[in-house]
Every structure is written in structure tokens, then in C-alpha cells.
């Protein structure tokens, strides 16, 4: 009994990376920086080039989907929401958030699919499908420049707590937590790359490594594989809780979708 308690205490001390107090972030607010600042000049320019940014190809496809009649009611997003540039302005920056109807935590992808099912009578787009990436990129694009501001109040609090615990927990063959790289060692080099603070503000992102557009969930899976941990399946609640924690952690940073990253 004593042995297991001692072991638990040791494990707790060993596994605790610099733990932030409840309302404080692990990185002091004045040091919070977007991943764009860790990019080289070429990729920073590419992200800012509204024509050449490869993510804009998905945004363009997303606009087609926005206007497309779909589902049992043959409705388009535009049918209810009109012009996205107006109706979706600032919206993506508030996600993930609690859906008032279902009480569930939804990220932007989940919100779009919930609308498809409930209001358009359409099947949800699959995780990481071209359609979901496109419509998410289009909607997120309308919030470019808006500071992230996800709420962690009310129903969201327990999701935030779970996400935060996950962030600071060691895992994988390398026995690392997210904090080991992104809070304790941001700005330092890993091979020829500079470790960023790991913020979600540019998502969905055109990642050169993927040669394609991808969601934050995909990037989290990539991180898990990077530390040789088991990748949770798409849709795992851990990802969503972590997304909320990350959005809170990055609050104030401008949304940059469609972002460009290595």
C-alpha cells in the first residue's frame, strides 16, 4: 500500500512538466507567438500570398460547397447564412465551443457537420475528407485576423480541464508531454527545425510535409506519432478537449487560416 502510494507520488512529481496555475498559461502572455514567426521567409510569404497559398485552393472549393444545394431539403449553407464573408466573420475564432442544443463540445468541423445533419438533412462529411477540409477552410478563412477567444466557462470547463491534463501528461515511447517541446523548449532546434509553441491558430493548414491541407486533429495525430505514442482514432474526445485547451492557451493570437506550415 505504502509502496504504491509512494510510487504514485513519485510518478506525479516526475510527470509534472511546469504546471501552469488554473488561469495562467505556461508561456507568459508577452511571449506568446504564432507559429508563423518560426517559419522561414519563404513560407511566411507563401501564407500571406492570397493567390499562391495552396490552402486557398481548398478555400475556393469550400465556397462552391457553401453554395451547393444538398441533403433531403436541398439546402445550401448560403440559403440560411447568406454571404459567408458577413455571416461567418469572427465565428471560427470562437471554436471549439459547447453546442447549446446538444450540450456537446464541437470544433468547427463538428459544428459544420451538425448543421449538415440537423438542418440540411445531409450526411456528415467524413473526417479529413476533401469536402470537410474545404468547407472548414472556407469558413475559417472568414475569420482571418480575428483573435482566438474560445470560452472555457460552464459546460466547457470540464473539457478544458481534461484537455489541460492531457497536455501535461507524458506519453509514448519517448515519454514526452506536449509541454516538453512546446513550453519548455520552444524556440530551440530539433534537427534543422525550430520548435514552435504549438498553437492552433493557423488551422486548417497546408502542410508541406503532407503536400495537402489538414486539420488540427491530423496535426495532433502527427505529434503523437512523432513521440511514438499510439495515435487515437479521428473523433476521439481527447482531441476535442485538447483543441479547447489549445485555443484557450492561444487566446489573443490572430486566426491565420488557411495557414502554411512545414
Amino acid at each position, binding site marked *: 500500500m505504502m509502496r504504491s502510494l509512494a510510487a504514485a507520488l513519485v510518478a506525479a512529481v516526475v510527470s509534472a512538466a511546469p504546471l501552469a496555475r488554473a488561469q495562467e498559461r505556461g508561456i507568459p502572455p508577452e511571449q506568446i507567438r504564432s507559429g508563423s514567426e518560426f*517559419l*522561414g521567409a*519563404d*513560407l511566411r510569404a*507563401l501564407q500571406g500570398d492570397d493567390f499562391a497559398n495552396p490552402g486557398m485552393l481548398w478555400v475556393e472549393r469550400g465556397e462552391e460547397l457553401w453554395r451547393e444545394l444538398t441533403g433531403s431539403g436541398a439546402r445550401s449553407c448560403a440559403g440560411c447564412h447568406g454571404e459567408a464573408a458577413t455571416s461567418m466573420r469572427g465565428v471560427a475564432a470562437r471554436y471549439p465551443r459547447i453546442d447549446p442544443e446538444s450540450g456537446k463540445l464541437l470544433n468547427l468541423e463538428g459544428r459544420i457537420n451538425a448543421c449538415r445533419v440537423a438542418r440540411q438533412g445531409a450526411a456528415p462529411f467524413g473526417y479529413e475528407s476533401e469536402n470537410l477540409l474545404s468547407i472548414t477552410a472556407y469558413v475559417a478563412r472568414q475569420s482571418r485576423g480575428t483573435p482566438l477567444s474560445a470560452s472555457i466557462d460552464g459546460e466547457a470547463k470540464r473539457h478544458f480541464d481534461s484537455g489541460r491534463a492531457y497536455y501535461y501528461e507524458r506519453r509514448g515511447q519517448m515519454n514526452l508531454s506536449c509541454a516538453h517541446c512546446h513550453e519548455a523548449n520552444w524556440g530551440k532546434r*530539433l*534537427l*534543422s*527545425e525550430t520548435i514552435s509553441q504549438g498553437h492552433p491558430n493557423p488551422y486548417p493548414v497546408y502542410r*508541406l*510535409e*503532407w*503536400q495537402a491541407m*489538414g486539420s488540427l486533429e*491530423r*496535426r495532433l*495525430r*502527427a*505529434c503523437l*506519432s*512523432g*513521440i*511514438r505514442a499510439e*495515435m487515437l482514432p479521428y473523433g476521439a474526445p481527447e482531441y476535442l478537449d485538447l483543441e479547447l485547451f489549445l485555443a484557450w492557451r492561444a487566446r489573443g493570437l490572430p486566426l491565420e487560416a488557411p495557414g502554411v506550415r*512545414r
Partner: protein
Amino acid sequence: MKRRHFLAGAAGALLAPALPRAARAQYNSIEPLIRAITGGAPLNQGRVTLELPQLADNGNSVPMRVTVASPMTSADYVKSIHLLSERNPVPRMATFHLGQRTGKAEIRSRVRLAGSQRVTAVAELSDGSFWSGSAQVVVTLSACMDES
């Protein structure tokens, strides 16, 4: 006596090539490609500026700009520009065909590089001459494995 021999032998082994030939990076000569383009005509160095970053962010997509100094008039213009790789599995990366109405012999694109290498651009001019320029790029692997 035996020990000294052993140590000398070990030192000799260290000086020998660390990897068998087949395991070393595959760099190929682009001479056959150049011969196919020029038909044996001389290849002049100059006039062609090939710009690639010294260190690529990611080998999947590397920004490239190739410029050929030419008045681009109907009497004197660039007919084509070939991009050649000494390391990609497909060494002829691209061929761009220009003409009298091109105005400026400059192309920008993004290329894929299968590892650190020298990339060469060969331009064919309207007078039948050939010119080349090249750039060396370091391409590193991503720090973390991504199996997403």
C-alpha cells in the same frame, strides 16, 4: 606485438569507406541528359540564374526561380529552359517553352527535391546556343516522424 597489430588494423578499418558503395547517396551524372538536350553542342556557363534556397524548409515543395538574361526580341530570345536533377528518381524535372512574345525569360515554380543536391537549368536560345546555371540545395528530413 599482437595488440599493436590489432590496433593498427582497427585504425585501418576506420579509415576505409564507412558504407558500401550501394548504400551511399545516389548522385547521377546529368551529362547524358545535357547531351540529349544540346545534341552535342557546347554548353556555355552563364546567362542563366537559377535561384533556390540554400536550405529547404521541406523537400516536398521548394521555391524556384530561373531567369535567363536575354533581350527576348524576335531576333534573340530564349526558346526553352530545362530543369535537371542529379538526385531525383526522375532527373528531367521540367521543360519550359518560351517564345518571341514572352517578353521576359523568368519562370517561378515550386519543385520537389529528393534530398540535398545540385539542380541545373539549361537554356536553349534562338541562335542555337546553350547556356546553363545551377544551384545547390540542402534538404533535411523532418525532425519528427509523421504517420498521420
